[in-house]
């Protein structure tokens, strides 16, 4: 039973999921989740380990397709279009729905090449001058330009962990996606690097619909305007972040927020 706070139905929803279930073989990882993701806000998925929040997030850009045993049922729409439908190409979907992973994973190429790779394979910018513009704009938006502008030819893997993660965010926004999915983007980083990522999420919200999975309730409280609480594969409660943290309806949400488990 899912509790959805009033006024959460959104006519302009960017992503709309209906009755989504995900199975790994016989095991059900996500159990019948329906949610509307607003384009205007940062949406946070919280919940204890193994509750299915990351798996659910990976449905939005069909990254679960790469796992042979995973099966997704239900309907997921991006701007009203079925992402599993015949008219939706998975490559195009992933260009429209970018993703940042838990562990920073820059390509073992130069910083410049990390950013230029996406625009180049999609043919957004082919000339060097156009690519230069895209690289500078993406790195500036990710707050990394001033730190790396003099060493764009250095390997992306030579940066610090926090810088690598911002490089990955810059890489994702270089193809100008509509949605950015973030799977615990700061869990491998120290508090200062985490603060920078959170600041960045704040700056990017509004331009992109952002969905973030996080372990840290404080982080969810700081960066998101909408929060969904997951437990044992089910979405327990979904509402405005302030409501979820100050006035949760479900007992399980209350117990998790107050640190009784998780």
């Amino acid at each position, binding site marked *: 039973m899912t509790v959805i706070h009033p006024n959460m139905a959104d006519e302009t929803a960017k992503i709309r999921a209906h009755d989504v279930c995900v199975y790994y073989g016989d095991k059900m990882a996500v159990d019948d989740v329906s949610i509307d993701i607003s384009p205007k806000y940062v949406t946070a998925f919280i919940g204890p380990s193994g509750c299915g929040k990351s798996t659910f997030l990976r449905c939005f850009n069909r*990254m679960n397709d790469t796992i042979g045993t995973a099966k997704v049922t239900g309907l997921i729409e991006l701007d009203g279009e079925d992402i599993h439908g015949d008219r939706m190409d998975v*490559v195009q979907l992933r260009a429209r729905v970018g993703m940042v992973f838990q562990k920073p994973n820059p390509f073992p190429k130069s910083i410049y090449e990390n950013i230029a790779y996406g625009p180049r394979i999609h043919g957004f910018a082919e000339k060097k001058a156009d690519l230069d513009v895209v690289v500078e704009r993406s790195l500036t938006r990710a707050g990394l330009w001033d730190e790396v502008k003099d060493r764009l030819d250095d390997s992306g893997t030579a940066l610090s962990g926090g810088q690598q993660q911002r490089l990955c965010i810059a890489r994702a926004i270089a193809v100008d996606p509509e949605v950015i999915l973030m799977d615990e983007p700061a869990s491998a980083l120290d508090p200062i690097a985490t603060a920078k990522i959170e600041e960045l999420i704040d700056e990017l919200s509004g331009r992109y619909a952002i969905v973030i999975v996080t372990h840290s309730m404080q982080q969810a409280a700081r960066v998101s305007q909408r929060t969904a609480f997951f437990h044992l594969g089910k979405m327990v409660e979904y509402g405005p972040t302030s409501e979820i943290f100050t006035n949760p309806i479900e007992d399980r949400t209350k117990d998790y927020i107050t640190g009784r488990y998780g």
Partner: protein
Amino acid sequence: MSTSALSAAGETAQSTRPTRTPVFERRLAKRYRDERNFRLLGLAAVSFSLGVLVFLLGNMLINGIGGFQRAELTVTIDFPESGVTGDAVSLTAPSAAQTLEMQGLPDVVAFYAEQQLGAEAAAELSIDGWRDVSAALADDPTLIERSATFELAASSALAAGMQGEGPPEMQALAKRLVDEGKLARNWDWGFLSRSDATSPQAVGIWGALKGTMLTMLVTLVLAFPIGVLSALYLEEYAPRNRWTDLIEVSISNLAAVPSIIFGLLGLSIFLAIFPNLRSAPLIGGMTLALMTMPVIVISGRNAIKAVPPSIRDGALAIGASPVQVVFHHVLPLAMPGMLTGTIIGMARALGETAPLLLIGMRAFVATPPDGFTSPATVLPMQIFLWSDEIDRGFVERTSAAIIVLLVFLLAMNGLAIYLRNKFEKRW
């Protein structure tokens, strides 16, 4: 009073901890002893193998150096007097040797040899000696205008006599000529440019070396792309089911099949399809490629498995298609590992004789192959053939051929290691 009582209590408490007992210390000492013994054992093993390697290479080098030399007789020919004539054009023409033969160059050489060395020694001049003169004239046509001195190959009997072997009269003749300064062992650079011959004085390695290069090229061109593409397909695209398991097992077994079986396969399939290409590097290369491919597939798959999945996810997540993920990210990262497998496979193919025996590459080939389809032999086969010869002169030539094979192997591996380091990337 109270403080000392406290510290005494502390000591008893400490001495009863399991890490502070004599038993523990004895165990600790034994652990260190074990580690030291293991290190010594390892060092001994490495030293032993290094010693064997040094002995092998040293032995090869000492024996083989002689193979790069040959016994040569000194003959001076006065061309203006001899009546042999020619100009820059005719002496450098491809038919120069025939023209000179028609003018009686072989007799001229024999005449001067007899005059300067005596009839007995002139008889021990290699019958093809005049060809060396003709080659020298092609290099420098102005020699024809004056008297010139040549170092011409002695017969293998005289060469043996020079080293204290063979009949006593030949040894005596060799000794006399050496004392007179008319017989000497000289560096024989021609060894690297001639091909197989019946006399150890006239043999060269170039034919076999070129045959090896052509064969290896065919092997590489076939085995590398097929092996790499198979590895990529099996690892990245093929579904995991009973069929792919079967293919995996088959490839592993293929890598362990004795090489002579591959030779039979080459004989019954390739030579049945192309019966005119017996002894050709093309068929040899195809046969060796069959043998090399499984090694490349296995090492390639391991290299692909070692590429972190996070790189794949990262590329997929910005919308790279599976083919782009493979060719832009997985392949470059797996390339060093694949090259290592290729080095191992090619090194094995380079030293292989058994499969080539069966497809006829053990023929006596006196001219270097001029293409992938002309008869050829390869270095290990040449070594095998020479080691089988009765003439003592072939012993050193065999060692020299082994040195050439090892140098070729080192050069090939060096190139592969250079390429591997060039492609190597950290992540």
